């Protein structure tokens, strides 16, 4: 049932979903994947995931791209639309092919508005939660989010996202056992710390100088 028509991409995804039967069909499925992709994905990867041929996926990608840009409406509506003789307006997002990978971005024309929204509420300082999470990652790297959560006793998902966005940490592959994404500190972190490598981080010892005043320092410092 779920075998693709021509030239199946080498492996079956095992999902067992007949995408053609789903509302919106293969195009909507492709759209669903594109919406949650963090990193650009190649047509080959997308085809493998959707269990479609690369050619079919490439065609749909171009269709979607044109549709988002306002040159056309969605395929099922195409006939009626072209009969009616109208062109759709562009959407607020666009599908871009960057260095062989496809990803959805906010449309460039709205950069000012989006930029203002991004900057809203942004601070130049890390919160105490972010600092502590960074400290745990720095001293336990490479480490998974689950592990950091366990150490900190709270969920650290959004804080990890902030730290990544700030370029202080990055992913460093997956744990071979659990498959969990691991995080480590970046060279930007070292730069900000003024050290050459993580080996230069001070040893953790029971009594560290300067511990007393640090609370107030951070409390005063943030926000």
């Amino acid at each position, binding site marked *: 049932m779920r075998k693709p028509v021509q030239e199946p991409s080498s492996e079956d995804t095992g999902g067992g979903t007949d995408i053609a039967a789903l509302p919106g069909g293969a195009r909507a499925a492709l759209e669903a994947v594109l919406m*949650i992709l963090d990193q650009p994905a190649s047509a080959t990867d997308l085809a493998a995931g959707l269990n479609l041929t690369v050619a079919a996926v490439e065609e749909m990608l171009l269709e979607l791209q044109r549709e988002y840009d306002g040159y056309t409406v969605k395929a099922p509506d195409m006939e009626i639309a072209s009969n009616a003789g109208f062109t759709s307006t562009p959407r607020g997002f666009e599908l871009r092919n960057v260095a062989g990978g496809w990803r959805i971005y906010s449309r460039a024309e709205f950069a000012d508005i989006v930029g203002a929204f991004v900057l809203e509420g942004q601070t130049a300082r890390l919160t105490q939660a972010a600092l502590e999470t960074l400290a745990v990652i720095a001293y336990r790297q490479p480490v998974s989010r689950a592990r950091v959560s366990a150490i900190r006793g709270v969920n650290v998902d959004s804080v990890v996202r902030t730290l990544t966005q700030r370029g202080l940490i990055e992913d460093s592959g997956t744990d071979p056992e659990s498959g969990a994404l691991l995080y480590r500190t970046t060279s930007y972190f070292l730069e900000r710390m003024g050290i050459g490598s993580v080996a230069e981080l001070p040893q953790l010892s029971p009594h560290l100088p300067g511990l007393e005043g640090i609370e107030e320092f951070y409390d005063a410092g943030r926000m």
Partner: protein
Amino acid sequence: MTAESAAPFAQRGQQADADDGGTPPEAGGAQGAKKPGFEVRLANFTGPFDLLLGLISKHQLDITEVALATVTDEFIKYIRNLQKLGEEWALDEASEFLVIAATLLDLKAARLLPAGEVEDDDDIALLEARDLLFARLLQYKAFKQVAALLDATLELEARRYPRQVALEEHFAAMLPELVWKHTPQQFAALADTALKPKTAAPTEVGLAHLHGSPVSVKEQAELIGLRLQQGRPLSFRALIADAESTLVVVARFLALLELFRDQVVAFDQLAPLGDLTVRWTASGDEWSSDHLTEEYEEQP
């Protein structure tokens, strides 16, 4: 909220409720990764209400009407089996089970007796115990049902993936430059705090501070005995000079009374409220502190 996904609890999560109510627990269960012995593992039952509900549903009884006596035996049997397997129980878990087992037994016993009129306090207490058990059981059942609803909703919702992509580079570049003032030492101190194992907040109110450290009258008596046996009379003031707390002073005073009763010491007081001098009057090893044990050892 999806009401249709609310499977009746009787069909949910009770798969381990086998034919025999006394089925031995399957080790591991839902809480397999947890600290061993922390959760009571009776097949998949977590806790006495879970077990009781399982038994009631097995007999297809309605909680509100059931004579719990019917399931009492099985409940007790279950606990016995658990004990046989040598499972370690934490005190609070065991007590929850025992409280309910005891209530069930009470109810069963009441049913076996000829039906009489409710008149004495015991009967009323029994009725209250039963109502309380029913109420708690119904409440637990309600939460179990909504837990199944939560489960279904969470599972359904997990099929929707939120868009949460990294900020596009040109936007990320707009973010204000990070203010960073920490020296490596300060950062290390931060790590030190963050990595320190968090001690779980206590669930019980500590009572230790309500009692001073136990002071044994017997020990104090031995101490006084040793000092006085040097041969020289000592004032009470001198005897308590090194007492570190009022409690020790009191213990030494009590010890002296004991010694006086045993006629091994004598008191001299030259003037009212004057210094009390204590003399050892017994000879050698005529006296021992052994018999003091019974009276003073069992302190609260």
